C-alpha cells in the first residue's frame, strides 16, 4: 500500500476551520472554528468524507480509503504528517489488536481496505506485521466478511476468539460478569476499535462502545433494557478500558433502521470515517448522524421509538467516566 503524501499543517487547519462543525443539542449544525475548540479541553471527534470513495464501483477504493484515514488521523492528533499520529499511539514492540465488527458479512462489516490501511500505518510506525492481530468473535464470521485468516508466520494475524478461547477467570464490573477473549488479554496491549456505524434494534445504535460486546463470552446476557448499563459496564473492564487507545468507526456504509443486521433498504453510502480517542463522544456524534438520516427519511427519532441509546449517557456518568456526551466538551471536526 502506498504512503499518502503529507498534508501541511496550514492546509490541514484551513480544511478543519472550514469544515469544523459541532452538533447542537437539537441535532442542528453550528459552525465552530477549530481554534475555538482546544483539544486539551475537549474530546475531538473527526469526521472525514470522500464522495468519490467508491469511484464508479460498489467497493471502496484502497488508496482513497488510505487517504481518508490519514486525513482523519492528522486531524485527530493535530499533526502534519501521516506517520506522526501512529507514532503517538504505538511503539515498536507493542502488540496491537484491531477489533473489527464482522457480523455483517462482506456488505456490512469493517471494510477490508480500511483495516489494511490501519495495518499499513502501524507497520510504518514500527509495529511488526506478526504483532498485529485483526480479530472478532468468530473465525467463520471473519471469513464471511472477506478477511484472510492467518494465525502463523510473519504476516498480520487474523482469527476469531473461537480459536484462542476465553480466559477461565471471570472479570466483573457493576452488572457485568464475563470472561474475556484471550486475544485481548494475551495477544495485544494496544486495542484499536474498528466498529461499523449502525442502527441497533436493542441498543439504539451500535458503534465504539457496543463493539466491545465482541470481546466477552456472554454478550447475549446484556441486551435487556437497551443494553444499559451493560455496555458501559463492559467497557469498564480493566483490559478493555486500559488498552483501547483509538476508535476508527467505519461509516462508509451505515444503517439508520433495521439493525444490527444489514438491510440494504435502510442503509446509505455515507463514504465517511469517524475517528476519536473518546468512545463516548464518538458514539454520541454517530448517534446524531443516524438521527439526521432518520429525519431525512421521515422516520421517528430513536427516543420516540423508545430505543434511544441511553447507555451513552451511562458511559459518561460519574461512575464510569469513559468519556463525554456533553456537546460543550466535544469538538466535532469535519474534514
Amino acid at each position: 500500500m502506498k504512503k499518502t503524501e503529507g498534508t501541511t499543517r496550514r492546509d490541514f487547519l484551513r480544511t478543519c476551520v472550514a469544515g469544523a462543525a459541532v452538533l447542537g443539542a437539537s441535532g442542528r449544525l453550528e459552525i465552530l472554528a477549530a481554534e475555538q475548540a482546544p483539544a486539551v479541553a475537549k474530546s475531538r471527534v473527526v469526521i472525514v468524507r470522500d464522495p468519490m470513495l467508491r469511484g464508479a464501483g460498489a467497493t471502496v477504493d484502497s488508496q482513497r480509503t488510505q487517504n481518508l484515514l490519514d486525513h482523519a488521523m492528522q486531524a485527530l492528533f493535530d499533526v502534519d504528517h501521516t506517520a506522526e499520529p501512529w507514532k503517538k499511539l504505538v511503539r515498536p514492540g507493542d502488540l496491537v489488536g484491531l477489533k473489527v465488527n464482522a457480523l455483517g458479512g462482506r456488505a456490512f462489516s469493517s471494510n477490508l481496505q480500511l483495516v489494511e490501511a490501519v495495518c499499513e500505518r502501524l507497520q510504518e510506525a514500527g509495529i511488526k506485521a506478526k504483532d498485529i492481530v485483526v480479530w472478532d468473535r468468530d473465525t467463520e464470521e471473519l471469513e464471511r466478511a472477506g478477511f484472510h485468516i492467518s494465525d502463523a508466520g510473519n504476516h498480520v494475524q487474523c482469527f476469531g476468539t473461537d480459536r484462542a478461547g476465553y480466559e477461565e477467570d471471570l472479570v466483573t464490573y457493576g452488572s457485568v460478569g464475563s470472561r474475556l477473549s484471550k486475544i485481548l488479554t494475551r495477544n495485544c496491549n494496544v486495542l484499536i476499535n474498528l466498529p461499523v456505524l449502525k442502527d441497533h434494534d436493542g441498543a439504539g445504535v451500535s458503534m465504539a462502545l457496543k463493539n466491545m460486546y465482541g470481546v466477552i463470552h456472554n454478550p447475549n446476557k446484556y441486551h435487556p433494557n437497551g443494553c444499559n448499563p451493560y455496555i458501559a459496564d463492559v467497557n469498564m473492564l480493566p483490559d478493555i478500558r486500559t488498552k483501547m487507545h483509538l476508535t476508527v468507526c467505519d461509516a462508509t456504509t451505515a444503517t439508520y433502521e433495521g439493525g444490527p443486521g444489514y438491510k440494504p433498504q435502510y442503509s446509505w453510502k455515507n463514504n465517511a470515517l469517524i475517528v476519536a480517542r473518546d468512545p463516548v463522544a464518538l458514539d454520541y456524534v454517530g448517534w446524531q448522524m443516524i438521527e439526521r438520516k432518520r429525519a431525512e427519511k421521515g422516520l421517528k427519532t430513536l427516543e420516540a421509538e423508545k430505543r434511544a441509546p441511553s447507555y451513552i449517557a451511562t458511559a459518561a456518568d460519574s461512575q464510569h467516566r469513559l468519556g463525554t456526551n456533553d456537546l460543550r466538551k466535544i469538538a466535532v471536526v469535519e474534514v
Partner: protein
Amino acid sequence: MAREMVSPADVKFPGVSSSNEATQYAQLSLALDRRSFLKCAVMAGAACGISAFGEPCAALLPWAGGSAHSDSQFTVEAKFYEKLQTKKIKCKLCPRECVVGDRERGYCGVRENREGIYYTLVHSRVCAAHIDPIEKKPLFHYLPGTLAFSLATAGCNVNCKFCQNWDISQARPEQVPADYAPPQKVAELAKQYHCPTIAYTYSEPVVFSEYLMDTADAGHDAGVRSVVVSNGYMQTESLKAAYGKMDAVKIDLKAFSESYYRNVVVGELKPVLDSLVTLRKIGKWTEIVYLVVPTLNDSDSEFRGLVRWIKTNLGVDVPVHFTQFHPEYLLKNLPLTPVPTLERAKAIADAEGLHYVYIGNVPGHPAQNTYCPKCRHLLVERVGLTTSQMLIRKGSCPFCKQPIPGMWHA
C-alpha cells in the same frame, strides 16, 4: 439455572465399591436392599470426586470418543417461536419473548435465527453427563435411593448471580466442550447404568426443551423415566408441551419478590409462580427448592409470604427444600447461609402447615429426613446424598397408614 452443582469431572463406573465411603454408607443401610444401597452410595461417592476421568463426558458417552462434531449435528429447528417480518422471529419458549434478527441469538445464547428460521443449537449437544443419586436433584419424594442419568447442555434463560454452574449455563454452546448424545443413546445408557431416570439438570433445561422432549420419549420407549430440574421461567404452552413429558419436576423458586428476580436472577417471579400452578393443574409431581441467600431473600415476611402462597395455590403436600447458599460467581461477597436461618425458614413453613419441609446442603441435618405428618415417625432417612432407610410402603406410612404423596416405588 439450577442449584445442583455439576461435579468437576465425570465418574468412573463401576469400580469404587470397596471405598471406605461406600462401606461407611453401607453400614447405615437398613431398609434398602444391599445392592441398591451400594449402587447409590458408590455413585454418591463418585460424585464427590472419588474417581474421575479428565474428559467431561468421556466415561458416560463412550461413543463420543473426542471426535470432531459438526454444528449441523446439533442444529434442529426450534419448536416454540413465531415468524415476523424482515426475517425476524419471536421466541415463544420463555417469557422474555426475544425478538431475534437474522443471524442473531436470543438471551439464552443457544438459539439462533438463520434466514428467518429459529434453530436450537444444543440438540444432543451434551456438555455434562453424570450419574447422580436422585437425592442430589433434590427430589426426595421420587424413587428414593435410585440413580439418575443426569445431563446438561450449555445455556440458560436467566443469569443468577449465585449460579454454581455458570461456566456452562452462561456460555454459548461453542464455548464449552460437548459430545453428541442423541436421545436413543441416552436412553440406552441410562438402562445400561441401571438408572431408572434421566435427569435434565445442571444448566437450565428450558433452553434445551426440544432435546429434553425427544429424550424423554426415547426414555419412555425404553422404560426409563425423566425428571427435570428447572427455574420454571417458561411460557405456559411450552411448559405443558415439554414438562408434560416429565415424570417429576423440581422447580427452583429463587425468591418471593419481583425485585430479587429482577436484580439477582434477571428474570420475573410471576411466570414462575404461574408455572408451578400449571404443573399442579396437569398433575405433575413437583418439588420446590428455595435457595436462602443471606440478606437478599431471608426475611421472615418473605418466607411467610412464600409459604402461604404455596399453601393456597399448591397445597400443603408439596415438598419445599430450604437450601444453603454457597458464595459463587457474582455473589462471592456473601457468607454461607447460617443454619439457624434455614431452621427459621423451616419453622415458619411448619407453623403455616406445610407437611414436607426440608433443609438442604447441610449434611447430617435431621431436616433432610421425611417424617410422617400425622404420627411423626421417621419414614425416609437420608445421609449425605443417599437414602439409608426407606420405610414407606405402598405410598403410606407403615405405622399409621397416612398416605405420603410422591412416587416411592419404581
